[in-house]
């Protein structure tokens, strides 16, 4: 093979207590598609951000075209011909599509005249290339998630980069859009562009990648040509053990219906006509592709975006939920998806985080009792095996998995009847993940109705008693957890078959 156009040696990077990268080496040659694979939180996005200069590595060397790059910034990376599509779109919601695209295409010359017509045409062309039907003059704010993703892709294509990084570009795209995109990638490869491609969809990797590097817990566990590896061995590399026995088995028999939704909807969040029941002691999994509306549904149940149609009943009684406070009073708990923004308050101590949802019960008369709180926190730290240097440690000093446990503890403290978990193990390392699974099982056994949203298919399949699959803001199928297989879930999620009922 030819000389690598990009070479990383022994890159390390930590965020506070989290060691995201523990010495990763990686290389990319011109005209190849190098896939990067790993579980959630393995460090893929962090590695990408090191390459684009968004993060400064703690140690390690970066070489581009054989030259060592000392201090890489997004601007200098841009000059070196590195472009990236980030996992979270880095777009400006107040600016138009054409403008967003132009901002990264035009060299950052300060006093340059902007040719709006040219920009418009250029945006039009690029969007056509990825097959997106988007008005270049629309404000990005008004676009849907997949549309924003397409804009990101168009933006990266336009730079004419020699090194193109794509971090889960297809996560929210439909099948045809994905095929179109893969075509574009092949095109670029023949033009000699080096592409780093991240995806959780293994079939895509086999379709287009030349080599694949697997990351696990911030370390590289091997680079292999795709031709010499199969799906099973890839998964084994990712997870570090056989996949089979990691989910604790279900032991309980579901009891009475706790919560029941009838035709629930909320126009502003795009959820409509959702109906299902969840029983005490049951884990109800919610599957679907990103953007299917699962989080939105949870937010309706929790009163953040109150429902404007349909009915929620709890233990047979119809209830209205207008705010999170009311939801909490009804015994509904929600462990949100975005841990760092919603789940825990990073600057506050673990103990304070844990008691936040139970202020009125725990502190009668609103008086804080620090001793009681600390003892309380200690019990949860012990019960959930949270690794922290004490109840006073700020939430931000913990690793993702432990933060998740703190968020969980907060809601367990409310003694809820219904527990909604949104991506409970996203970005959580393997050890903590199975601990969280055990905790969830135990809670269900204690008689909670658990709704578990997850994009991790094995997790859904392994944990759920029943699985609801969502697509386009509504439930398209409810499957039995014991009989469901990846194929049937994906089929429902992609909308290929309708109304499979358990």
């Amino acid at each position, binding site marked *: 093979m030819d000389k690598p156009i990009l070479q990383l040696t022994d890159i390390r990077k930590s965020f506070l207590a989290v060691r995201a990268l523990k010495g990763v080496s990686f290389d990319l040659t011109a005209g190849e598609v190098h896939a990067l694979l790993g579980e959630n939180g393995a460090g893929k996005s962090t590695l990408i951000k090191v390459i684009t200069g968004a993060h400064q590595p703690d140690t390690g060397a970066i070489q581009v075209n054989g030259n060592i790059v000392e201090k890489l910034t997004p601007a200098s990376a841009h000059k070196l011909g590195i472009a990236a599509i980030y996992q979270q779109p880095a*777009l*400006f919601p*107040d600016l138009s599509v054409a403008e967003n695209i132009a901002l*990264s295409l035009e060299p*950052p010359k*300060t006093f*340059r005249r*902007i040719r709006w017509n040219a920009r418009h045409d250029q945006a039009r062309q690029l969007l056509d290339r990825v097959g997106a039907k988007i008005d270049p003059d629309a404000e990005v704010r008004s676009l849907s998630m997949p549309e924003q993703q397409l804009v990101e892709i168009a933006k990266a294509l336009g730079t004419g980069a020699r090194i193109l990084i794509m971090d889960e570009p297809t996560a929210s795209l439909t099948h045809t859009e994905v095929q179109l995109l893969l075509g574009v990638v092949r095109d670029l490869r023949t033009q000699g562009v080096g592409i780093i491609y991240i995806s959780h969809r293994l079939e895509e990797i086999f379709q287009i990648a030349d080599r694949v590097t697997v990351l696990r817990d911030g370390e590289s566990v091997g680079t292999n040509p795709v031709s010499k590896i199969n799906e099973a061995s890839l998964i084994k590399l990712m997870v570090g053990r056989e996949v089979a026995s990691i989910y604790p088995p279900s032991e309980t028999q579901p009891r009475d219906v706790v919560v029941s939704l009838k035709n629930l909807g909320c126009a*502003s969040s795009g959820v409509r006509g959702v109906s299902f029941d969840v029983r005490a002691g049951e884990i109800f999994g919610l599957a679907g592709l990103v953007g299917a509306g699962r989080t939105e549904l949870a937010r309706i149940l929790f009163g953040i975006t109150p429902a404007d149609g349909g009915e929620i009943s709890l233990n047979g009684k119809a209830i209205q939920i207008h705010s999170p406070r009311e939801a909490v009073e009804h015994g509904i708990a929600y462990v949100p998806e975005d841990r760092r923004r919603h789940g825990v308050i990073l600057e506050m101590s673990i103990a304070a985080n844990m008691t936040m949802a139970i202020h009125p019960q725990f502190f009668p008369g609103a008086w804080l009792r620090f001793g009681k709180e600390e003892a309380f926190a200690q019990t949860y730290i012990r019960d959930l095996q949270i690794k922290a240097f004490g109840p006073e440690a700020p939430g931000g000093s913990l690793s993702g998995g432990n933060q998740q446990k703190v968020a969980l503890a907060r809601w367990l403290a409310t003694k809820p009847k219904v527990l909604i978990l949104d991506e409970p193990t996203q970005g959580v390392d393997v050890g903590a993940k199975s601990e969280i699974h055990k905790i969830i099982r135990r809670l269900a056994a204690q008689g909670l109705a658990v709704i578990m949203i997850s994009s991790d298919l094995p997790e859904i399949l392994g944990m759920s008693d029943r699985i609801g699959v969502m697509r386009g803001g509504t439930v398209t199928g409810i499957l039995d957890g014991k009989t469901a297989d990846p194929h049937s879930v994906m089929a429902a999620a992609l909308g290929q078959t309708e109304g499979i009922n358990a």
Partner: protein
Amino acid sequence: MKKYFREISVAIALGILLLVMAIVAPGFYQPQPLLSLLTREAPTIVIACGMALVIIARQIDISVGSQFAVCSVCAGLLAAKGWPLPIVFLSSVFFGVLMGAVNGWLVAGLKLPSIVVTLATMVTLRQGLNMARQGEFVNLPDTVQWFGLSQVGGQWLLVTASVALLVVMAFAMKLLSAGRFVYAVGTDAEASRLSGIRPQLVTFSTFAFIGALTGLAAMMNIAQSPQVQPLSGTGLELKVIAAVVVGGVAISGGRGNLWGVFAGLLLLACVSPALTHLHVEAYWEKAIQGGIILLAVVTDGLRTRKQKT
């Protein structure tokens, strides 16, 4: 159309005010007083352009009033010493840039909150000036007034210069990359860093720029009368911020444009003389100004709320 809702509604409010004046008190429309009114507002327009930039970049500068006074007095003293006008002019701008750069360094370099930084520099500069001058006026040589032009010529010069600056800046914000950088940084500093913009440099520049404009405005002010009062510019920051906000620039950054600022500024500037013409007692003025500001932000709030639900 929807995109410019705010600008248009301010313009309509201004239109209504002007219409009411045309019907009720046509005496409002006399060329000379109107020209004088615009001339008096010329420095404010210039500073408002800078303030709009700073606020679009999601910062704020409440020290402009003090900067304005410092520039005025320093330039006045130099002029009184007999320095040639162009040099006085440049040094006024230079002092402004200097003060703006200090603010900018503290905000962008040290990442300190701009509202507190500029609060501190506002107090320090103002009190320093008071200490140095003890309220004494600076008397200027006659050559300074109207930059040596005739009065009407000078007035036209100041008005056209300030409006021209506003127009140029409004187009620059739309047509120059630099303008778009400001919007991008104000919308999302992290995202703009990822697209290769240097947010800190942009922030610093907006502060230095507003300083320069303040220096320019100070010159435009001292050209209007033969004396400089060290107290001048007191309360100017609130006036300018109010105009910018009424004109539809979002205090949370990234949104708004200079046309709206222009309309907002004219609206607020017209209120006081309009009340004089309507023979409303002066003690209502502050309450009415406050009411206009609140009305503007409330309609905005109601509108965004409606959009959300």
